[in-house]
Every structure is written in structure tokens, then in C-alpha cells.
């Protein structure tokens, strides 16, 4: 049985990891919940953002937040373009799965072409910085990622909840025709939503670059966990995604401390499978 300190540390790591999961899950939860389109290329996009952050930092010595300042708007535009294609071909929820599957592979190939399959690490002086809280270490970068996730999640939730536009985004998910009858132009909104979702992927990417080692195969590694977070947190629910991220992060991390590290993925997938089988109406 590991010591209390070890357990405490793993809870902290779990929360921080969960924050990053939530950051990744945010965009996906929005597009799946509100647009009813499954975007499997979301992770690939985030990883592309990570590599671009790395490249801008490595080759042009651009600080990460500056790089993000370039990447995030560019990704917004990408998201809009993607939805233009979807709208043009009247893509259904199911077809979107296949198309984005293909897109994810293309993005992975793109990444591998330019950056090879070698591991890449964004070297930064803050990488090893951490805050001391009693006997526990809280790595600064990960804390920042977690806080960003929380801020974005709460801000998005508040935006959806309290503003007119937010309500106008939620209503068509249930009854587009009736929303239209009261003036909601859900077609135009869909483009914006798609852009925002991609922009969030860009933000997630910037943090991934700072925190993790980059390799193209990571696209698929995070896929299952993030889908679990989205479904457990509830489609279209940003704060739900945040909490689900924490839940999964902590359960994985505690499992790692108590049992063997390699068992960790089992936790999130098992929860996901259980949820899909027992409560499919949540999706």
C-alpha cells in the first residue's frame, strides 16, 4: 500500500492530467453535443497545434503564447472550412465519423512527413518548475494547463448558459426547425461553433507541446480517453467535461500508484464501455 504522500501526489497528478484531458475534450464535446457531428480528427488537430507550437518555438524562437496567438485564430478558420465541407455534402452524424477518421490519418501523415516519427520535446526553462505545497509537488506548466481548462470550461458554460447566443446554440441541438421559427440562424451559428471547437483544439495543442513529448502516434493514444471524458461529462456540457476529466485523471493516476502503470487506460475505457451499455441515452 503506497504512502499517503504518494497517494496525495497521484491525486494531484491525476487532477492535472485530467485538466489536460478536459482541455482536449472541450472542443469535441461542443461540436458533438451542439452540432451532432463526431469529429475524430480533433486530436489530430490538437497534435498539429502542438507540433506547430514546437516548430514556432524551435525555429523562430517564438514564445508559446505568441505561437498560440497565431495558431488559435488559424485553427478557427480551419474549423469553419471543415464545416463548410460538411454542410456542402450534407454530412450526417455517422458519415462525419468516417470522414474525420480519414482526416485524422491525413493530419497524422502530414505531421510525420514534416517532423518524422522521432520524439520531439519542446525545451523550455519552465519545464521543471513546480510549486511546493507541503510534501506535494505541483508542476507549474501542468497547473497552468489545468487552470486554463477550468477557465475555458467555466467561461464556455457561462456563455452557453447566460447569453442569448448561447441559448441560440443549444436550442437547435434539440429542434432546429423551431429554433429557426424564432429567428435563430442555426446554419450560420454552426460555422462559428465548428471554428471555436477547432480553436480549442489549438489551445490544447499549445499545452501538449509544453507538457508532453510529441510523437505522431499520440493521436490514437488519447482518443479513447478523451471520448470517455466527453461521454461521461455529457455531450455539449463544458463543465461536465471538466469534471469528467478530473474523475478519469484521478482514477487513472491512483490506479497507476496502487497497481501497475500499464493498467491505467483500462479504467477510462471500462467506465466508457459501462456507460455506453448501461446508459446509451446519455449520448
Amino acid at each position, binding site marked *: 500500500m503506497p504512502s499517503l504522500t504518494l497517494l496525495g501526489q497521484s491525486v494531484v497528478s491525476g487532477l492535472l492530467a485530467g485538466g489536460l484531458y478536459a482541455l482536449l475534450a472541450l472542443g469535441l464535446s461542443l461540436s458533438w453535443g451542439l452540432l451532432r457531428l463526431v469529429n475524430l480528427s480533433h486530436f489530430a488537430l490538437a497534435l498539429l497545434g502542438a507540433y506547430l507550437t514546437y516548430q514556432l518555438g524551435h525555429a523562430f524562437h517564438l514564445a508559446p503564447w505568441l505561437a498560440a496567438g497565431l495558431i488559435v485564430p488559424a485553427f478557427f478558420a480551419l474549423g469553419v472550412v471543415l464545416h463548410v465541407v460538411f454542410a456542402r455534402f450534407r454530412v450526417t452524424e455517422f458519415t462525419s465519423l468516417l470522414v474525420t477518421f480519414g482526416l485524422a490519418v491525413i493530419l497524422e501523415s502530414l505531421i510525420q512527413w514534416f517532423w518524422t516519427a522521432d520524439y520531439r520535446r519542446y525545451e523550455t526553462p519552465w519545464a521543471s518548475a513546480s510549486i511546493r505545497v507541503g510534501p506535494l509537488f505541483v508542476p507549474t506548466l501542468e497547473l497552468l494547463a489545468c487552470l486554463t481548462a477550468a477557465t475555458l470550461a467555466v467561461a464556455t458554460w457561462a456563455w452557453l448558459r447566460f447569453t442569448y447566443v448561447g441559448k441560440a446554440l443549444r436550442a437547435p441541438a434539440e429542434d432546429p426547425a423551431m429554433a429557426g421559427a424564432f429567428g435563430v440562424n442555426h446554419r450560420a451559428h454552426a460555422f462559428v461553433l465548428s471554428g471555436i471547437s477547432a480553436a480549442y483544439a489549438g489551445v490544447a495543442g499549445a499545452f501538449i507541446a509544453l507538457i508532453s513529448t510529441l510523437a505522431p502516434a499520440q493521436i490514437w493514444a488519447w482518443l479513447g480517453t478523451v471520448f470517455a471524458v466527453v461521454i461521461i461529462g455529457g455531450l455539449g456540457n463544458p463543465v461536465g467535461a471538466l469534471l469528467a476529466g478530473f474523475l478519469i485523471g484521478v482514477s487513472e493516476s491512483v490506479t497507476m500508484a496502487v497497481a501497475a502503470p500499464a*493498467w491505467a487506460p483500462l479504467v477510462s475505457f471500462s467506465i*466508457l464501455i459501462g456507460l455506453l451499455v448501461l446508459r446509451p441515452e446519455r449520448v
Partner: protein
Amino acid sequence: MRQAIGLLAAGLILAMLPLVGLPAFYESFLYLVFHWVALATSWSLLSGYAGYFSFGHGAFFGAGMYTVATLTAGLGAPFLAALPVAAVVATLLSLGIGAVVFRVKRLRGELFGLLTLAITFVLATIVLNTRLDGGPGVYLSNVPLPRLVASPTGTFYLLALGLAVLTLAAAYTITSSRLGLGLFAIHDDEDVAEVEGVPTFAYKLVAFALSAGIAGVAGGIHAMYVSYLTVPDTFSITVPLYVVLMSVLGGARHWLGPAVGAALITASLYAFTGGQQAILGRAVVAFVLILIVLLLPEGLVPAVLRRARGQRGRTADVAVAPILAAAGARTEAPATLDCRDVWRAFGGIQALRGVSLSVAPGEIVALVGPNGSGKTTLINVISGHHAADRGRVELGAATLTGRPAHEIAGLGVSRTYQIPRPFAHFSALDNVALAATFGSARCAPAEARAEARAWLEFTGLGRRAAALPHELNLHERKFLELARALAGRPRVILLDEVLSGLNPGEIASAVHLIRQIRERGVAILFVEHLMRAVLELSDRVVVLNEGEVIAAGGPREAMRAARVIEVYLGKAHVA
């Protein structure tokens, strides 16, 4: 038949090649082609034909690989004996998953895909952490390979060829059998397929099991081929991705489609060998997938065939069995439909409150009532789409309540839908033939098409037999629905607003048809709003309001009953 012979001939010729001395390079390349042909074709047995897109084919493939690895390297069993065990393990895995998942109605489409993907990851984690692999991987280099021909590559070639031929043969047989027909129907509309008599749960399980078993064997062979297994390579996204790609490219609904896709993609990937080119190759393949999904969703093979044949759907070149001759032969003993005190609620709403009615053979009973009175719910309960909370429904001596919908169809109950629900990818003829195959008539495929022809003639759609549903207008689709309901040789027909949307001339023909159906001794219960038709056609009328029967009797008396007038028009009219 020609296709089957062609397949066997091709198989034999290909089998000769190693004996004639094919260079090892080609043997290896063709091994891979056959390997993917088997994998992609097996995937489409469930996912292509029935539409349950699985992203977990890698789980069964991996299960097969590791079964063989464990048995041969770990336990010293002979390789060829390990292969059937690999098939069994993979099959059991799929049956376990299917038994749970196929019962959950909402787990279709993309949810099924996600679930199967998740299961693959779970399996991978389990294998990685137990003695099955444990981390360092498994070596099979010490396992002796039985030599079917002189070279090892030749042996693999033959093994894979054998599997590919078997798989294609299975696919071909299925597509021309009842199982295939049922799977294709499930793809288009699972609920309607069930109501037409297709045992959907059983068929999905069989297709899933078969597809998993074949993947397991392919994995087993491949384990020996690579001779060093690691979890990341075995359970990577490659297998799930490629089988989807190959099937969608070639045409997931055609027995040869995935094979064509497999050959094309393997060949193009081989063309891009080495380092950067391999990456480019993958990207190109993915791009092609996107194009196909968006522009040619049916796949290459069906598109090419359509061009070649210049016609759509399958035409029936079978003799038209005269209706009268077919009439006496297989009609089951007519029976009375009896609903006794049926209750059904949805959430907080009580849709049916103790409804009792009966319909005798050759009787036409109209079921009328305001919107929301429970008419369609009653039909759904009788046909088995919903279960009754309380009460019984009997047909002659048999009890219908409590049985799954496909059994009820088999006992002789047919229904039509308010908004027609034909199987979108089936021609008119095949739509009707399906009902003949799975309904109480239980025809063999060839008979079924003759029967279908006859019923299409009966409803006036003879010339439209080869048309697809979207090419038919509303009136034709309604009559197709009617023909489909009749082809099952039912003893009871439930018609749900069959006249709505028709113009007066069409209504007249429909009324005429319904009378003719009555003459054959079928019991008819029909829901209708068009009061003129109700009065003209029905022997008795049952009026429902808010789930209860408020009047029943001859058409004129029932409609004149005070309560009925009140419900329809309001109190002031009761005078």
C-alpha cells in the same frame, strides 16, 4: 452460380503459382493481398451488410494472433492445430460482446463504432499486462512451420489464399441466402426488418461471430508470418482503419467489394514503399476514403456494375405465378385476432387503457379516433413493436403478447406504416420478396421472388418491380407497403392510414384492393381518418379516445353514438 465457379477457378489457378515457381517477393506481396482480402471481407459481413460499423476488428485479429502465439510458443502446440483454436477464441469474444450490445437498442451507428474501439484498447491493455505478452513481446521464431510447399513464403501464400477463398465463398453464399437478405434489411431499417419476420438479434450475432472467427484465423496466420508480436503493433489502429477503408472503397455491401478494395489499397501501399513514401501513401489512401464517402458512398464495385448493366436493382426474370393458383396452396388456417384488456403507458402517459377488440377472418374493422387516442400504439403493440403492460393479444390459438416481433410476423401478422418505410436499398421486388421469405409463408429465395412478382401485379406495381423506393411516388410506395404486407401471407393485416395523401382515384383503387384482400379470408384492422372510406369499407368500427374504446358497432351506429359526436365535434352538436 457463374460467380462461384469463377471464384473457385481463380483460387485453383492462384494455388498453382507457387508450385510453378513464383519469386518470393510476389509470394509475400500476394500473401498480404490475400490477408487483407480475408480481413476486409470478414469485416463487411456484419459492418457492411448490416450497417453496424465496427472499429474493433483489430480486437479479434489480435485475439487470434495472441492465441496462436501463446499456444505455439508458450505451450508447444503445433501451428496448424492452433489456428482453429484462434478462430474459436475470437468467435467467443464476439459472442460475448454481441450478446450484451445487440440487445441495447440505442447502441447503433457511431456508438457501436466507439464501443468496439474501446473494447480493442481494453483487450490490448489486458494482453500487455498479463502473461500473454507482459511487455517484451512474443517470439515465434522457434515454432516449426509445416511446409505445404518448399518455401516458407509459399506456405504462407497458400494458407492466406485458402482463407481468402473460404471467406469470399462465405460472403458470396451469405449475400444470396436468407441470412444476407436479413442483414441487408437490418442495414436499411432494423425495426421494420424485425416486424417483417427477420430474427435480427440472432442474425447479427451470427454475422459478428463469423466475421470475428475469420479475423482470428487471419491473425493466427499472421502471427507466424511476422514471428515477433508486440501489443502496440498488433492492436494498432492499422487493422480497424484499413478494413473500413478497403470495404468502403470497394463497396461494403457487395461480396466482392472489400476484396477489390483490399487489392487496390495493398497494391498502392506497396507502390509507396519505404520511409517518407509510406507516409504519403497513407495520406493518399485516407484522402481517397474521404472522397469516396462524400461522392461515391456505395463504393467502386456497385458503381462499376451499375454502369456496366445500365439498370438498377435486380430484375426478376422469373415466371409470374398466377395469383389464383398460388392462393390455395400455402394459406394457413384463418384465425381471429383478439385483443383483451390491453394496457400500455409511455412514461407518464397512459396510451392504452384496457382496450379490447376482435377481428374475425374476412372482417374489416376500422379503428378511428382523434389524434393521440392510441390507434397507432395499439397497432404497435399487436405487431410486437411495443410490449403490452397488461392484457393479452391472441391470434387463434396462439398468444402474441410477450413474443418478439419477428415471431409474431411468423405467426401471420403484417402491418403497414403511416409513412411508408420501404427498405431504401432494395428494389420493389426485393422489398416484397423479403416479406415472403420471412413472413408466415416462409418461401425459399427463388419462390419468394415469384411470389413477390405476383403480389406486385396484384397491387398494380408489376411494371415497377425493379425500381428503388425513392423512384416511386407516394401512391406507389403505399401500394408497395401493401404488397409487402400481403406477401407474408398474413392472417391479419394492420393498415395504418394507408389512404392518407392519396387522390380520389387512388383511394378508389386502394379500397378495391382492400376488398379483394378481405375476400381471401384475411382479418383486416385499419386505422383511418377518411370517414367516407371508413363507412364504405368497414364491417365494424371501433372508436378510441384517450386510450379507451368509447364506441363499437356497425359504422353508422358507432359514428352516430352521442359520445363519439361529443368527442369529435364537442357537446353543442349532440342534439
